């Protein structure tokens, strides 16, 4: 880490005292600052809390919120909760993966999108649901999903909106 980066990390960690119970809150702060958990920062956290690196690593890889890899510009989270599943969520996910040319949830080669699945964000009345960043897109269909991605700059096969499906999500 550079001098500036070290300073930035120091300031971030300075907001927390050294109690072990702060670990998850600290990692959340790091995640929201850097959009992932960089290795040098995690090692710094291990020192600060006096916890072995192996344990920090386990916590960092255990919880869904944390990523050890940088995420793309747009984080697309497809809800696969039961209500969304029953209302067609998996097909929407397949469509999104196909449009972004991803075989499985992950990050596109241009780092524009990271696609993940989540298990229920609690908007079951609006199923199927996909969030892009903080925005919740609801009542999605495959066609709406394609249109939604294009708004964020997807290079998927351009689809003319079929008759009657003009409105966006």
């Amino acid at each position, binding site marked *: 880490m550079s001098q500036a980066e070290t300073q930035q990390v120091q300031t971030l960690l300075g907001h927390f005292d050294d109690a072990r119970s702060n670990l998850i809150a600290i990692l959340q702060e790091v995640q929201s600052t850097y959009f992932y958990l960089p*290795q040098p920062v995690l090692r710094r956290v291990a020192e600060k809390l006096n916890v*072995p*690196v*192996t*344990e*920090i*690593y*386990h916590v960092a*890889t*255990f*919880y869904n919120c944390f990523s*050890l890899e940088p995420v793309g510009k747009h984080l697309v989270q497809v809800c696969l909760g039961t209500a969304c599943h029953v209302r067609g969520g998996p097909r929407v996910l397949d469509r999104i993966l196909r449009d972004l040319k991803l075989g499985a949830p992950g990050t596109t080669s241009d780092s524009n999108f990271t696609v993940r699945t989540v298990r229920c964000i609690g908007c079951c009345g609006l199923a199927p649901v996909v969030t892009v960043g903080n925005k919740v897109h609801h009542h999605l269909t495959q066609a709406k999903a394609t249109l939604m991605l294009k708004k964020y700059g997807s290079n998927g096969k351009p689809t003319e909106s079929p008759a009657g499906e003009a409105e966006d999500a």
Partner: protein
Amino acid sequence: MPKLRINGIEVEVERGTTVLEAAKFLGLPIPTLCHDDGLTPYGACRLCLVEVKNGKTSKLLSSCTLQAQDGMEVLTHSARVEKTRQLLLEMYVATCPQSKRIQDLASRYGVRQCRLEPANENCIQCGLCVRMCEQQMMAGAIGFSGRGKNRRVSRPFDITSERCRQCGACLYICPVCEQRCHGASAETTLCNGCLNFATVCFQSYDDAMCFLDPCHACEVGGPFRQDVVVKLRPQSQASK
């Protein structure tokens, strides 16, 4: 000093004794995979399950983590325990068919079928290596990472930690890859090599596969066990 009953036998133990320790004291054999007396109990392999009375019903609890309590009623070989152990071992064999320890356990507890696809893995995540490295070798160079189906034993960031002294304790303590079983057949996934051996086994079978340890049938079964005779394999079949 809690007083409890195991298989109907009353025993009084020091506070803090586990049911596993109490059963061992009574000479009752309870199988384990993730347990080692020199390490903290883990409760992950679930082989040491015993049936504990709970009001009108009963529960299966891991004896290695269960502290003996006054008035506890424990069964180590009830039908429910045996059936659960068998199915558990069936799953273990499917996961690691090449582990001699697991094949031996399967033979001993009467596992006759393995209906699951063999996965041929080398780790059952018993955690012995992790605890060994941390508690006995004071290094903590390896640990678990991930969760659920993605959980595995790993080095942090997949880089060998500078805390690793290459001591080999993790290899030593591993119950799965320390000794390989070469008797697992492709069709059944099971070895069962020693299942039907009687006391005269070493005289009849020169190329007996499990010659490193006395087999359980010999230990426990005594003279010729008619009830567990399985179709014998032809002499010419070479071990892999």
